[in-house]
C-alpha cells in the first residue's frame, strides 16, 4: 500500500506537518517494501485551492492512504471521493506514527464541516 504522510522537511524521521494542503512535502511509504520517497506538495504556494490541488496530486500518484493532522473540507471531499483513507494524528515523528498506523492505533479522520463539498457531475 502507498501511504503518504504530510511533513515539512526532507529528513530521516521528520515531524508530521499537521496541515494537509499546505505541508511542504509528502513522505510516501510503500508499506510492503518500506521504501520511502519525498514528493513536493504542489499546493504549498497556491493562493487558494491548496487542498484540492494537493489531493489531486495524491490521486494522480495512486496514494491509497494519508496521515495528516487536519484535512480541509475540500481536500476531504476529494480524498473521500477517490477512496483514499485518511488518518488523523495530532503530532509526532514519522516513525512512531507509522508504528501506530501498523498497530491500528490511528483514528480515521472525520469530515470537518459535516457535509460533502464539491458538485458531482
Amino acid at each position, binding site marked *: 500500500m502507498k501511504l503518504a504522510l504530510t511533513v515539512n522537511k526532507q529528513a530521516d524521521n521528520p515531524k508530521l506537518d499537521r496541515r494537509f494542503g499546505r505541508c511542504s512535502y509528502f513522505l510516501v511509504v510503500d508499506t510492503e517494501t518500506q521504501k520511502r520517497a519525498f514528493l513536493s506538495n504542489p*499546493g504549498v504556494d*497556491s*493562493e*487558494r*485551492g*491548496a487542498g*484540492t*490541488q494537493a*489531493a*489531486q496530486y495524491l*490521486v494522480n500518484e495512486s496514494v491509497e492512504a494519508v496521515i495528516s493532522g487536519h484535512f480541509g473540507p*475540500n481536500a476531504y*471531499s*476529494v480524498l473521500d*471521493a*477517490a477512496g483514499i483513507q485518511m488518518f488523523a494524528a495530532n503530532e509526532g515523528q514519522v516513525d512512531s506514527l507509522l508504528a501506530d498506523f501498523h498497530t491500528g492505533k490511528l483514528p480515521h479522520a472525520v469530515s470537518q464541516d459535516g457535509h460533502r*463539498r*464539491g*458538485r*458531482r*457531475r
Partner: protein
Amino acid sequence: MILAIASGKGGTGKTTIATSLAQVIAEQSPLYLDCDVEAPNAHIFLDPEFEQSQPVNLPTPSVDENRCAGCGRCAEVCQYHAIVSIDGKVLVFPELCHGCGSCMRQCPHGAIEEIPSVLGLLEAGITPEGIHFARGTLDIGQPMAVPIIRALKQWDPYGDMEQVIRDSSPGVSCPVVETLAGADFVLLVTEPTPFGLHDLQLAVQLTEELNLPAGVVLNRDGIGDQRVEEYCRSEGVPVLMRIPFDERIGKAVAHGETLIEAFPEFQPRFHEVFARITDLISDHETTNQPVEEIMPASRCSKAIGS
C-alpha cells in the same frame, strides 16, 4: 473625477470622510459607490432609498456526464484547482472557481457548459439630499469580492456621472486594487499611530504601483506621534486635512450621523480638499503619461505581496 477613498488600516474613518465628501458636493449629484462589498455600511449614514437591484453572477462549470470521457483535461487546465478528476469522475468546487472559462474551452468532448452562480447583489438608490448611491454586497459564504466590485464599477444605474466617490474596503489586497483601478485620485485616510503609519506605507506603495496621485487625511490628529506626518513629508504625499481626535465625533458617527451633519464647521475644509485634489490631479497629469493598463486583478496580491 473618480475619487477613491482608501486606507491601509481598517477603522481609520474612510466612510466618515467619504460620506461627508459626497454631502458637500450633493448638489452636483455625485455617484457614491460603496465598494466595501464584504461589509458595506455607508447607506447607514447617507440613507438612500434603494430602487434598483441586479444580481452578480459568475459562470461556473457544469459537467455533462453523458459526454464526459473522464480524461481530466479540465482539472489540468484549471489554474484555481476548482476541478478535480478522479478515475473518470469529475468534482467541481464552485467556490474556488474564478469563471475564466478555460475548462469549457479546453474540454475535448464539449462536456462542460457554464452555469451562472450567484455571488452577490448590486443595489442603487438616491439619498434625500440627491446623492446617487450604489453598493455591492457579497453573499455570505462567497469568498471573492473582486467580481462584485468590478460589476459595481461597470453597472452605471444612473448613466455617466461627473463626480464619483468610491469608498474602499481596508487593506491593500485584490478588492482594494480593483476599487482603485481607474480612479483619478486616491485619498488615504489614516491615524497617527504605529499601525496607522505601517499600513499607510503599504497603501502609498500601492498607489505608486498603480501610478495614481494620492493625498492623506489624518484622522484622530493629536493621538500617537509625529511619524505619519514625517513619513508624508519625506515621501512627498500631501496631508490634505487633519481631523482632531474628539470623542464627540466618535459618538456622532456611532449614532449614524456624518461628520459634517454633526459638525457643519468642517464643511469648508471638505470643499478645500476637493480644490486641492483637482490641482493635484492636473499636476499629476502634466508629469505623468496616462497609464491605461492597470495590473490584472488576478495578479495583484502577488505583485504587492499581501
